[in-house]
């Protein structure tokens, strides 16, 4: 089955430091990959996506993600974390044919002042 995995339940980082939230995908078909963010008591918001082309994709709020085919990964990164980045981050994969977005289990990011 086409799926994604987020190995970390929580990531802690100090404000101003770089952050990485990890995501790996199953090797099956074309991996159309996405990152979404969920703030408390809010719906999910789209951050960025990889469809094809450059392996480094840039998204909202200064986030970027690198598609790595050899490691089957799509890690989310930001050079300098903000306290306001604290939220729940979901990696997702689009299953072609059915336009179905399948989400990972989520990683809680806590940025301390």
């Amino acid at each position, binding site marked *: 089955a086409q799926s994604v995995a987020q190995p970390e339940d929580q990531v802690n980082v100090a404000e101003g430091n770089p952050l990485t939230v990890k995501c790996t995908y199953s090797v099956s078909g074309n991996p*159309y990959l996405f990152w*979404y963010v969920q703030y408390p008591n809010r719906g*999910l918001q*789209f951050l960025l996506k990889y469809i094809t082309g450059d392996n480094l994709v840039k998204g909202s709020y200064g986030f970027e993600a690198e598609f790595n085919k050899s490691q089957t990964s799509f890690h989310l990164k930001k050079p300098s974390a903000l306290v306001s980045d604290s939220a729940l981050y*979901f990696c997702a994969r689009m299953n072609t044919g059915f336009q*179905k977005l399948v*989400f990972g289990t989520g990683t809680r990011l806590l940025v301390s002042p």
Partner: protein
Amino acid sequence: EAGVAQSPRYKIIEKRQSVAFWCNPISGHATLYWYQQILGQGPKLLIQFQNNGVVDDSQLPKDRFSAERLKGVDSTLKIQPAKLEDSAVYLCASSDYELRFGELFFGEGSRLTVL
């Protein structure tokens, strides 16, 4: 541009009772999704509509869940009878698939507690 509207935001019911959630997608979005998000888990797709037709309902527990999108605009998700394990946030999302592949716009969700 108005976002995806959902109601009610919160609902508490007892098991075996029924509940209905309403969703109004972004104007012009042909695709509408209902996701179930249980605490500590990622959202799970329950049903996906393209206009008023069902694209995927493979994970919808059809013995108790039903959903409709009669006029291809707003949608209702119903649970009858509810079970304890149905306690979750029900997220509605919509998308303009052709223009913005994979970019779903989510509502704030309807939190259901089944006692």
